[in-house]
């Protein structure tokens, strides 16, 4: 029984000895409802694109094109909204003299999720951090790839957490006491989101309208959705903090595509020095990533 996994929210907490709680967590979720959010548009836009990439993928992988040749995993893979965003990143990246054509972004493949899971995560994280006139949302930033890659490693296995028995349900102040690993919590949470969507709207989560997706997420956030093995809000918190991590971690991890997460909030990334601006007024700087440190 997973309970009180409030530790996942630690990601939002401030630095030592310096900052107060900067993340206000008032239960104001209702006000987030908005009808003009853009991600359903994204899905439509991308629908035309993914046919092209599917064709390309199939050619590259030696599959014979035909209406019956593709089934199972392959047919679902291309439902994801932004499977080509990685390629765009290459085009948008600073010019490389030796580059003749944009290489594909080989990072954009799945280490853990099934394609169906990936689509749910891709659309759910986009609702958590949506595209707007300020810049791209989670989907274009590659957040679902980030989460996939994280679940495949140490973090997904709770490799550095104390996972020894006995397990007891504890007080809220005692933190996560479940025996499930993060990847198992994701498996369960995504399945439950899908079930909830099917029950309520007769469609899978990824196929819902944006407002409906928000309703499902709110039901999880508030524990209105009753799950048996985990609490819905536990999963939601994990999904939310993983989304923020995917938006703002170094692009080396697969999210924060083209450093656009940083750019939107004027965060200059992995700079070596601010000695020249520390005593100055606000200074806008083009971000840099860890990759830039490799050449130095």
């Amino acid at each position: 029984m997973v309970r009180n996994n409030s530790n996942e929210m630690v990601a939002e907490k401030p630095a030592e000895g310096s900052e107060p709680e900067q993340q206000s967590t008032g239960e104001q979720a209702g006000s987030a409802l908005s009808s003009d959010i853009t991600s359903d548009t994204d899905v439509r836009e991308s629908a035309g694109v993914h046919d092209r990439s599917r064709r390309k993928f199939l050619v590259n992988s030696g599959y014979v094109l035909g209406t019956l040749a593709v089934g199972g995993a392959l047919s679902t893979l291309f439902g994801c909204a932004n499977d080509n965003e990685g390629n765009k990143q290459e085009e948008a990246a600073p010019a490389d003299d030796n580059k003749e054509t944009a290489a594909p972004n080989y990072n954009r493949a799945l280490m853990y999720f099934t394609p169906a899971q990936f689509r749910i995560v891709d659309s759910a994280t986009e609702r958590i951090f949506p595209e707007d006139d300020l810049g791209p949302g989670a989907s274009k930033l590659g957040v679902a790839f980030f989460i996939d890659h994280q679940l495949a490693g140490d973090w997904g296995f709770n490799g550095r957490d104390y996972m020894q028995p006995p397990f007891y349900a504890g007080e809220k102040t005692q933190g996560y006491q479940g025996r499930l690993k993060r990847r198992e919590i994701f498996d369960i949470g995504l399945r439950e989101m899908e079930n909830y969507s099917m029950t309520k709207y007769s469609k899978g989560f990824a196929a819902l309208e944006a407002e409906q997706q928000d309703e499902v997420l709110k039901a999880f956030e508030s524990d209105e959705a009753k799950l048996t093995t985990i609490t819905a809000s536990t999963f939601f918190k994990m999904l939310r903090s993983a989304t923020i991590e995917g938006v703002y971690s170094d692009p080396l991890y697969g999210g924060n595509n083209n450093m656009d997460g940083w750019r939107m909030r004027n965060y200059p990334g992995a700079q070596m020095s601010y000695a020249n601006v520390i005593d100055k007024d606000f200074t806008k700087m083009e971000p840099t990533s860890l990759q830039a440190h490799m050449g130095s």
Partner: protein
Amino acid sequence: MAKTLPKTDVVIVGVGWAGGIIASELTKAGLNVVGLERGKERKTEDYFMVHDELRYALRYELMQDLSKETITFRSNEKIRALPMRQYGSFLLGDNLGGSGVHWNGQTYRFLPYDFQIRSKTIERYGKNKIPPEMTIRDWGITYEELEPYFDKFEKMAGISGEENPLGGKRSNPYPTPPMKKSPPMQMFVDAAQKLNLHPYILPSANLSENYTNPDGVARAACQYCGYCERFGCEYGAKADPVVTVIPVANKTGKFQIRTHSNVRRILHKGGKATGVMYIDVTTGEEIIQPADIVVVTSYVFNNVRLLLTSELGAPYDPSTGRGVIGANYAYQVIKGSALGFFEDKQFNTFAGAGALGVSIDDYNGDNFDHSNLNFIHGGVIALTQTGARPIQNNPVPQGTATWGKEFKKQSLHYATRTLSVGVQGSSMAYKHHYIDLDPTYKDAFGDPLMRITFDFEDQDREMAKFLAERCADIMKEMGADNVEYMKELGPYEITMYQSTHNTGGVIMGAEPGTSAVNNYSQMWDAENVFVVGASSFPQNAGYNPTGTVGALAYRAAEGILKYREKGGMLV
């Protein structure tokens, strides 16, 4: 069958700040010292890719692997303690340099009041000011006696600062000038002065300029890159044991560091230690290192645990109040702060240093009258600019949705428009706050984990509320359009990061019975065992602890050399 090695003069358990300082002082004086470090070696080159918030701040690259060892926690004796399965409230260091590598570098000296808190409180307010279950104690040493050791630590680390107008008397100015003043710091200074407070630039172990210390160790100036806490410094600008004292000890040829060596027991006979037993964690081999003197310098929890599992010293019994090992566990009350949102101003919030800031001590210690207040002590209030890294810093006004369109818009907007004034509240000791061996949960070797029994008290709630209001006053004066501050402290929870300033368990005092070590950190119950670190704080002050830990380590080193000559109890 354990392998027994040749005897050494001194064996040190844990090579962080305290262990490193003592190793350097003893080896310079000609002693042979073995340093046993459970983790791996570390060096500045390790931090080539350090500007990685996910890896270091969220995945805890530099911290102890909790799958092997953690602590258990309960709010009070009535409930079952359960393991801290994931990081939250505090971060345990690991590897060479220990927590001294991932600290921020805020290097205060505790106030004179802190060392004589019990007698000075009674003197000014009477006996009834201290609730019966509050077990605060004088340290058995005064600020004046400890001053030369503070001075020594500051010179070794190259602390950058300016004199605290409300602090204890100094024998020398800081070895390097204060850090640069950012625009938010200037706003804090102006506001504090208008409120008749006494601001000073925060004393910093992030060097304000290039510095060569008395041992000849040269280090470069801080680049204000914004990656200190939870990170190592790729410039060596932040003082840590690996770039200061450890190389000095190594240079003598008298210091032997053995990494991957996890000490499990202090061996002792007839009230004296004979050495330690440790595991080479790469082979699993049990090894005995005999020594004339054993110095215990791991983090608070393992200092206490090693004494308890080794059955050295009298374990604390909370039902009778007898015994000392594990008593007086204290922490820090850090949540009483104020957040200011500015609509028309933007700041370089991304830039900073772990110890870049401005502080006031007008509400710390007994610098203000507590006659009409329901608490004693207080804390340092500071505006710090440590680098607002984007995953962990998404301030939005109260009432903002925590996700979706509104959250995105507001968190992007306020990322460079939010400042905070924070406080490090002191933490008093109580009869029912302690650490002992957990009856159920074990570490990777099968040894019991430490169990923490702790919660906030009325003292903490009253103090936090008072200090939060003071922080808000300053933030309003700084001109924020919207100021939010803490209204209720709430219970202590292990899940939310607060501070890695755990203290107590092997406390210092003037006499045995109520304390475990004397003011040289020498154990009353075993004269050749010195237990050094924040474990010796009888209660915690309203400051970061490292400056005081450093001073205590220098004094302990002096004591060990004296003991080596003359033997016997030093006090």
